[in-house]
């Protein structure tokens, strides 16, 4: 990765999204018509800083001059009238396949049924940083609405040209453009026929106000819902490409253990079984899951374990090992805490211990990987297909454009599916086996080896005056998140080292957990953001006060947030404290 010199001004927990990406506009447009055929296309240029941060290629920061302009969404009206919307966001149960199609149908004035969404496929969709933080509806939905609005204008222009009359007065509705004066009309399909008309979207397009929406914002059935009630929808674990083998990975006895010896002769002797030993990675691929398990059971490995902190010690460990950082933007102190507390009418002092929490998506981590002539295709239920692609490219030392990551509509993620663990494992095994390999984590692996939401100790001292005005707020958050600059550098150097031993994969994997008895403070944390678009698990109401809450990173670092009387500005504590 070439991101070592990038200045980080993003929210700290987003450091992990420092992805270096391709998808140049011209290339994308060319590919676009090649894939979809003739028609009318509109490309959205990411407009505001946050949208760019999420969607634009290249390295990102809030330094505006460094922000590349790139496409964030696009839309195609085909010669048969089919409307296709494209986004790099993934469908993980928040039902964006439905809601985004509603948005497009609404703005383009076409029936809901004529819109389909192509999502989260690194070969087909615009770059996207990831599906997290309940961002799809606020960022992608307006962009698709803008492209739909622009497409509608293009269709009206095309009709005016066809009839050789001025645009004014022409009406787009019901998937056709009508001239009220003469009563004649042309369907969108007819207008798109034989054209390869593309337009970059101006940043500011008028959009239909919410009060006039007829499809968006209304209850609609989940797209392809019938496939879900009949069991026909294929999640990643359901895929079975021709010749596929089943992969299993040997897990160490505890977090941080290293392999000292390994006798895999019995496994290698089994027919049809591929055995991979690559550094500390030991895995097998076999024609069936039970044969893979038998092969794995036949491998005798010795591990060197390292002492771990027990779950009983974790909170005191976090607090004792916290380090404050002077450059932390969250480290603020204004006024006198003592004075603020002394003048308070009501006090609330509390310590909250927050345990490591498994994200526990019902569909476990899974991937199917297939190598074809040096190119890798991976199907995996991830929230970050483009980042997964980059990690796979780095781990296997292939160009990013040799890796395609496709996200089948996924059985939820809850912030737990940012990394590419199963994808790396499946790809490593597939490369050795010369056949597609599927790896589906067991629930046991999920609970032990998946990254967790960070543990933390939160200490609060606060006071309010009689009318509810905040007089003092002292907030300390000691937590286990460790994805800071140092770990990013480690991660990048991990990308740089040879994959002969899958060391880089091991680096990822080694962050993944602890044993059952001794969960370790170094267990990596994941975004605690709730993928559901309703954001029900968020703290948004208190966000202004709690911005350095447990979602933050810090390798046990200490964050202080303080708002004393003089800068409280009459801020009232939310209902939680009243």
């Amino acid at each position, binding site marked *: 990765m070439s991101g070592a010199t990038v200045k980080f001004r993003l929210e700290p927990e987003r450091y992990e999204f420092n992805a270096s990406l391709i998808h140049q506009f011209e290339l994308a447009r060319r590919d676009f018509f090649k894939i979809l055929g003739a028609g009318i296309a509109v490309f959205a240029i990411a407009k505001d800083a946050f949208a760019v941060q999420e969607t634009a290629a290249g390295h990102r920061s809030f330094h505006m001059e460094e922000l590349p302009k790139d496409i964030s969404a696009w839309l195609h009206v085909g010669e048969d009238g089919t409307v296709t919307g494209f986004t790099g966001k993934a469908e993980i*149960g928040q039902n964006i396949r439905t809601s985004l199609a509603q948005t497009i149908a609404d703005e383009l004035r076409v029936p809901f049924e004529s819109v389909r969404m192509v999502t989260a496929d690194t070969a087909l969709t615009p770059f996207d940083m990831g599906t997290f933080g309940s961002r799809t509806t606020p960022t992608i939905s307006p962009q698709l609405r803008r492209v739909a609005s622009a497409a509608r204008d293009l269709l009206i222009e095309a009709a005016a040209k066809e009839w050789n009359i001025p645009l004014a007065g022409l009406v787009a509705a019901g998937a056709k453009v009508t001239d009220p004066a003469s009563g004649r009309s042309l369907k969108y399909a007819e207008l798109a026929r034989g054209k390869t008309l593309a337009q970059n979207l101006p940043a500011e397009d008028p959009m239909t106000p919410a009060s006039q929406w007829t499809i968006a914002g209304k*209850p609609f059935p989940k797209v392809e819902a019938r496939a879900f*009630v*009949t*069991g026909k929808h294929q999640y990643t674990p*359901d895929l079975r490409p021709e010749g596929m083998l089943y992969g299993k990975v040997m897990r160490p006895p505890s977090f941080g253990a290293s392999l000292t010896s390994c006798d895999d002769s019995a496994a290698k002797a089994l027919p049809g079984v591929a055995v991979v030993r690559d550094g500390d990675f030991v895995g097998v691929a076999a024609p069936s899951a039970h044969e893979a398990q038998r092969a794995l059971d036949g491998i005798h490995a010795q591990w060197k374990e390292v002492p771990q902190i027990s779950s009983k010690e974790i909170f005191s460990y976090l607090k004792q090992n916290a380090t404050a950082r002077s450059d932390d933007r969250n480290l603020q102190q204004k006024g006198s805490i003592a004075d603020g507390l002394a003048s308070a009418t009501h006090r609330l002092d509390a310590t909250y211990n927050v345990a490591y929490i498994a994200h526990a998506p*019902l569909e476990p981590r899974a991937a199917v990987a297939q190598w074809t002539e040096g190119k890798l295709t991976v199907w995996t239920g991830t929230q970050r297909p483009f980042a997964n692609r980059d990690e796979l490219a780095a781990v296997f030392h292939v160009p990013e454009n040799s890796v395609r990551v496709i996200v089948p509509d996924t059985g939820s993620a*809850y912030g737990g599916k940012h990394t590419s663990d199963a994808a790396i494992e499946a790809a490593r095994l597939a490369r050795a086996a010369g056949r597609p390999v599927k790896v589906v984590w067991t*629930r046991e692996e999920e609970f032990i080896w998946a990254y967790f939401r960070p543990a933390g100790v939160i200490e609060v001292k606060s006071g309010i005056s009689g009318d509810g005005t905040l007089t003092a707020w002292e907030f300390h958050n000691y937590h286990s998140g460790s994805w800071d600059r140092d770990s990013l550098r480690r991660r990048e150097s991990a990308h740089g080292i040879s994959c002969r031993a899958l060391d880089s994969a091991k680096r990822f994997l080694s962050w993944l957990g602890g044993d059952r008895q001794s969960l370790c403070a170094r267990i990596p944390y994941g975004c605690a953001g709730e993928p*559901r678009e309703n954001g029900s698990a968020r703290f948004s109401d208190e966000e202004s006060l709690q911005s350095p809450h447990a979602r933050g990173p810090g390798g046990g670092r200490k964050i202080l947030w303080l708002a004393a009387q003089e800068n409280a500005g009459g801020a009232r504590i939310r209902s939680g404290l009243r």
Partner: protein
Amino acid sequence: MPIEIEVNGKRYPVNYPPNTPLLSVLRDELGLTGSKYGCGEGQCGACTVLIASAPRRSCQIPVSAVAGKVVTTIEGLEKDGRLHPVQQAFLDAGAFQCAYCTSGMIMSSVGLLQSNANPSPADVVQFLQGNVCRCGTHPRIIEAVRHAAKMMQEHGR
């Protein structure tokens, strides 16, 4: 001599070892992937199938135990292109988000309605305790099961 099992009205020889969980045979050997793996411990219900009309966790049952018994999976509920009332009710109620639990929820609900044609919301909650929905669609699931019960009574199914 391989054992034979009957799934959704079709007989299949099973080549996997007799102690293989029924779920693996269904998914991997027979390609019936509608039944889901969620935990492998019988705790989440995503793998629920009907064995002799009773809902069972297929991850906990060795395939040898269903030899000679009738197994119905989510793929076997639809008849002549018509959804089972429970499937239709889940569809009508939109009783899912990611829908990974849906197959198991539907199979358990079919089992419930066979033993209790008119379950109260409390009955539904009680019966579906063993089916986990991580997305939180429970109110709609309860609504769907009650709606299915009504449809089945009206149509005498």
